[in-house]
């Protein structure tokens, strides 16, 4: 008799808890994968495709599915570091050369107005029309270099954004280590 009661209690508990869990899984369901969003927030959103994926989101998905974290040159070593922190993976050296933040510049004298770069720009940062001169909206340009290959007259170049008063940063204080005065042996 006792054993039946125990089984009944356990069964009841299982039913109640099961119902609770089932309810919770519907009520608190998370749409989409929050991990992908977190990864995407770390990626620099240049949409350059240098990682081999067509944009930052596909790469974020690939990372979540186990791809390497060191394929994003615009994110740099710091980006790899942050991804490693987020995912608990080991920091790896960047798969490519790290480039400084850059901006594309169209040589407007050479531009023939073919609109090919406009179609290539992932963030619509180029204005122009067919057979009209094109120009880059510099503040919107991510420096992804996707406009370089389609240009038939090679009038686009990538220039690094130098340091100026507006983006200058205070440097990390460096403790000067001075050579200790050499003591003469008495």
């Amino acid at each position, binding site marked *: 008799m006792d054993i039946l009661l125990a089984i009944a209690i356990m069964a009841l508990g299982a039913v109640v808890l099961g119902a609770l869990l089932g309810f919770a899984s519907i009520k608190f369901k998370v749409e989409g994968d929050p991990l992908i969003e977190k990864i*995407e927030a770390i*990626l*620099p*959103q*240049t*949409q350059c495709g240098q990682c081999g994926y067509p*944009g*930052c989101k596909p790469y974020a998905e690939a990372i979540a599915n186990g791809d390497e974290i060191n394929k994003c040159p615009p994110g740099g070593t710091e980006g790899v570091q942050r991804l490693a922190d987020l995912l608990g993976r080991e920091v790896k050296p960047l798969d490519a050369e790290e480039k400084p933040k850059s901006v594309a510049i169209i040589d407007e004298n050479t531009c*023939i107005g*073919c609109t*090919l770069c406009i179609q290539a720009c*992932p*963030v*619509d*940062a180029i204005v122009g029309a067919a*057979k*009209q001169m094109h120009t880059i909206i510099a503040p*919107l340009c*991510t420096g992804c270099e996707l406009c370089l*290959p*389609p*240009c*038939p007259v*090679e009038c686009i170049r990538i220039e690094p954004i130098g*340091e*100026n*008063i507006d*983006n*200058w*940063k*205070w*440097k*990390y*204080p460096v*403790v*000067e280590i*001075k050579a200790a005065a050499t003591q003469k042996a008495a």
Partner: protein
Amino acid sequence: MLMNLFKFKGGVKPPTNKTQSVTLPIAQAPLPSRLVVPLHQSIGGVPQPVVQAGDKVLKGQLIGEADGWISAAVHAPTSGTVLEVAMHVQPHPSGLDAMCVVIEPDGKDEWIAHQPFDYANAAPEAVREYLQQSGVVGLGGAVFPTHGKLTPSKTVPMEELVINGAECEPFITCDDLLMRERAEEVVRGIGIFRDLLQPKKVLIGIEDNKPEAAAAMRAAVDALGEAFLVVPVPTLYPAGGAKQLIRVLTGKEVPASKRSTDLGVQCFNVATAYTAWRAIAHGEPVVSRLVTLSGNVHAPRNYEVLIGTPMGELLQLAQPHPDTDGIVMGGPMMGFLVPDAKVPVVKATNCLIAHSDRIFPPKAPEMPCIRCGACAQACPHELQPFEMYWFSRAKNFGKTQEYHIFDCIECGCCSFVCPSRIPLVQYFRFAKSEIWAREREKKAADTAKERFEFKQLREEREKAEKAEKLAKAAAAQAAKKAAEAAAAAAAESTAPAAAAAPAGEAAPSTDAAPAVAVDAAQEAKKAAIAAAMARAKAQREAAQPKNTEVLSSAAQHDVADIEARRAAAHLTDPEPGTPPAPASEKAE
């Protein structure tokens, strides 16, 4: 009159070193050999240059137009010729260049036609705009455009207007001398601010180590019949910080996230009031300011200096000692060594200190933090500098923000008292600029993401629209074809079944004249294609750009050259949508 004063926590009492430079009255600095006037001298938008090399300018002529509401105009400090508008090194700790207008004075110092502004009959909006056009900015050091601070809050009534004459930093005496010698104009300037803001009380805070200035201000207030209160405040660094002075005089504490107008207080420097009055009453824009020359010099004194005067040249007036090895702009607490003696005096330059190891002995090396808490006791903002130091040093910027690093005013009290001689403020500046840089990057990334997603959306939509259009055209074509076939069948055949059959199935289902119907349909299709091609050709010809017709012969020659090259490279008339062949070659 006695007044109940409040106190702020912390603060330090460094040696004031003010007496050296107050013995002589203000002198006019001579005209320098050339003036380098930076365009960006205030917080906010960078003014756009309105002159170019070779232009003749008069004193007070506009050379940089304000860009946006938070921005202030820049004017020529003297008459002469513009030599260039170019990048020059700035009085900024970075030592980087920025756009400057270089003027060679003609020696006449001739004013542009100017007249007083009738402010009694002008709308407040017009007064604010006039002050912006006159380049009036906060001369206490922050150079925030003054007109931007002269709009009363709509929700909170303006209680107190605080005028800052505290001048708490060691060595600096330019506000002291200004109040002693030009108190009347300062008080009249305060009157303008009072009229615009309509506060209940006007409090002029002056540190009690400047009794002459306080007396002069009191006399001027009485003489003009104003009801302003001149309040001596205890000498304690940084009592001249806007937030500290507001705290001392009103007891109100302004949090970092709020502006003082939200609490019904506004604060201006005395020199700002003076320049505002000069602009209103005489029509003179801000082209000069008072600068204290002190430190390692023979003859410390205050000078009225034209904006753009090279600092090295100016400092010669005070006869620096031969062991001078640099110039500090600002005071010893918050100032910085300028990167080059060529840098110009700007609106923010209140003091130049000749630097030498004798008066500023080099700091002994930094030692480890012993968590003594001296910095926390000295901090006027009740922060915990030792905690912020740990996290800044470890580059744990999220934590520094939890410890309110953005409340830090970088006054330097913590570094001043630190027994381990840690350059705490440098760490905080580093952390702050890193956080700002990250914020900028995040913003740029968000914009890029948004634009990328929108572009994808647009491309999808365009594709869908195109497909829909094609489907519609195909359906229309099919219907037309069927109708034609039906008509042909009806005309040639007498079979009633064919005529009665539904139009859509007429052609395939009729046995009577299938061959004829198909033939007719094909003929119609061919004709339609030919017509469409003709239309497209006509359209293309009509759409030829007309921008090459008015070119010079040389340019037309160039165009012909390019066309010839393109023809040679088989680039001409590519099919729309397909990239020309050489492009794909180059991509590899």
